[in-house]
């Protein structure tokens, strides 16, 4: 827990004064992230300076993480040195002509300072090379160099945000299920890591039957389910859902009732509600729980399977999986259970939005609200796809023997999921851009499934 505790130390953000005189307004330097005209933007991030040996080592590490973050997006082509200009200095504008020769469009210059009480400060500037202008100047200070990784992710988020016009997502984490052992006796432990796969650690390692962990969008809380001995009958097993505070390690069982199981739970975008499935007498229905008072509302009553609910970004709607039409498909309903106008016409308490061949499940609403990601199963293959909330614009982004369980980056740009690439290969985590480009493996210490992205860290 020590590792986790040190993550929440404060960052001090200060503006740096500009190193370049203000220039006339000009076209913003932007990488185009959408469309057929996409081309990665050539950028350079020469290793940051350090004012002494310790600072130099941290500067090296921070530069590597910044480069790795930006490279992982597929949006940038990171040019490697050596470069003509060797005497970069954060307090002096670069010689832009020395950088246009590599066709570099954006240049990042930075340094790292460590003072006598071990406060670490990282300063950086982002330049538009062809525009010969400074786009951004910032610095972050932390009370201990131990937080250098978070500083690096913050710097990368700022650069990403400046050059794409979208929010960053690098200063975030992913909770997942770490798997080990043979399929017939599989251990499934709750684990967490930075979004780039660094700093992986187990949470509650004593529990080895975990499933469906999800982050709170507003606090350092995870909701997850686990198979545990029934307190009333220890040789029997219960499927319980827990709220777990990562910072304090405290956890509690969420709204349990006799002879029923709560599972597939997620938070509302404001963190005040949980939506989940409750199985009772073999039938799974969807409930919401207001966390402050623990009051429940049952939203579905059909004898069909109603499972995998996920709130819309504005909290007003819920997408879920139901087999009320015969096979599992995606449906949207109002979070208060009232009737709604369906995109396909008519009014109903839930509107079907998927009509393609095969089976749809595990929908999850983008934090931007514009897309719903899902798992689709058809003719022995599994796909991760996206569809608009009105059922339009379905696109399949991935395909394999088993692709399952999408989760969105906090900016709604990247989808992480788990994949068993071939029969018996064991699950691994992958990411893909919403555009369908940039499929990448996410390194984990062993087999891993069921990722859930955190919000941006505070």
């Amino acid at each position, binding site marked *: 827990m020590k590792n986790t505790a040190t993550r929440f130390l404060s960052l001090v953000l200060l503006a740096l004064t500009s190193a370049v005189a203000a220039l006339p307004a000009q076209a913003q330097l932007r990488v185009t992230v959408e469309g057929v005209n996409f081309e990665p933007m050539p950028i350079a991030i020469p290793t940051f300076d350090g004012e002494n040996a310790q600072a130099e080592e941290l500067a090296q590490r921070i530069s590597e993480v910044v480069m790795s973050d930006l490279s992982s997006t597929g949006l940038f082509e990171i040019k490697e040195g050596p470069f003509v200009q060797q005497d970069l200095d954060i307090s002096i504008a670069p010689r832009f002509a020395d950088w246009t020769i590599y066709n570099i469009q954006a240049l990042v210059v930075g340094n790292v300072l460590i003072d006598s009480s071990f406060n670490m400060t990282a300063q950086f500037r982002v330049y538009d090379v062809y525009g010969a202008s400074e786009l951004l100047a910032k610095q972050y200070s932390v009370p201990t160099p131990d937080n250098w990784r978070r500083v690096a992710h913050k710097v990368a988020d700022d650069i990403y945000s400046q050059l794409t016009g979208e929010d960053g997502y690098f200063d975030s984490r992913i909770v997942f299920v770490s798997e080990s052992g043979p399929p017939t006796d599989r251990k499934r432990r709750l684990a967490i890591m930075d979004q780039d796969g660094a700093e992986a650690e187990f949470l509650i390692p004593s529990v080895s039957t975990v499933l469906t962990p999800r982050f709170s969008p507003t606090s350092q809380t995870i909701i997850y389910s686990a*198979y545990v001995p029934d307190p009333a009958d220890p040789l*029997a097993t219960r*499927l319980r859902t827990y709220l777990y505070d990562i910072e304090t390690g405290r956890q509690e069982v969420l709204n349990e009732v006799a002879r029923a199981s709560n599972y597939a739970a997620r938070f509302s975008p404001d963190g005040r509600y949980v939506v989940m*499935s409750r199985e009772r007498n*073999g039938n799974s229905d969807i409930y919401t729980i207001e966390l402050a008072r623990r009051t429940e509302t049952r939203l579905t009553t059909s004898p069909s399977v109603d*499972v995998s609910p996920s709130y819309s970004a504005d909290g007003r709607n819920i997408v879920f*999986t139901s087999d009320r039409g015969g*096979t599992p498909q995606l449906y949207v309903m109002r979070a208060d259970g009232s009737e709604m106008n369906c995109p396909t016409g008519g009014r109903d308490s839930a509107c079907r939005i998927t009509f393609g061949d095969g089976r749809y499940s595990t929908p999850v609403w983008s934090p931007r609200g514009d897309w719903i990601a899902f798992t689709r199963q058809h003719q022995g293959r599994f796909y991760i796809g996206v569809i608009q909330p009105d059922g339009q614009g379905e696109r399949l982004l991935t395909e394999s023997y088993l692709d399952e369980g999408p989760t969105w980056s906090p900016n709604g740009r990247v989808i992480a999921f788990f994949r068993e690439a071939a029969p018996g290969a064991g699950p691994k985590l992958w990411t893909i851009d919403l555009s369908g480009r940039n499929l990448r493996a996410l390194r984990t210490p062993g087999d891993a499934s069921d990722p859930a992205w955190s919000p941006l860290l505070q």
Partner: protein
Amino acid sequence: MRSTYLAALVIAGGLVSACASQPEPTPEPVDTAPATQPRPAPTPAPAPATGPTAGSRADFEAKAATRVFFGYDQYNLDEADRTALAAQAAWLKQYPNVRVQIEGNADERGTAEYNIALGARRAEAVQSYLQSQGIAASRMSTISYGKSRPINPGNNEAAWSQNRNAHTNIVGGASS
């Protein structure tokens, strides 16, 4: 087609019935088209040479098939399942202190969350049938493991047809 398949398994079961340690029969590979898939017959109960302790878990397993199997995305019981469950019920009536938990399982060809719901339906189908046979609901509970607990680690229809099951597990009151 289907009746031929079941008959073959019954014969196989008869041949091995004298051997207590015989593993479960592996079903024949079948056509992978859903809906029409046959499913394996319930686990045949081997009759050991020296009987297990009356009222024990081993005795239950000797007297009744403890696992019934389901078709793809199905949770209805067929005649063979009902025969197996009748044997379970008969034994449970004989030992009224025994409590069981019925574990519903699914194959790997579905998402984890949907398969929990599906496994729960299978467990409930078994519990309801046992209740209809006179076993008190208070002696039974259910749990769905979804696709997390395959009994056959394979990745083909033969394995999947075994992994779509409901298992009646003794959780209390049996002789040791």
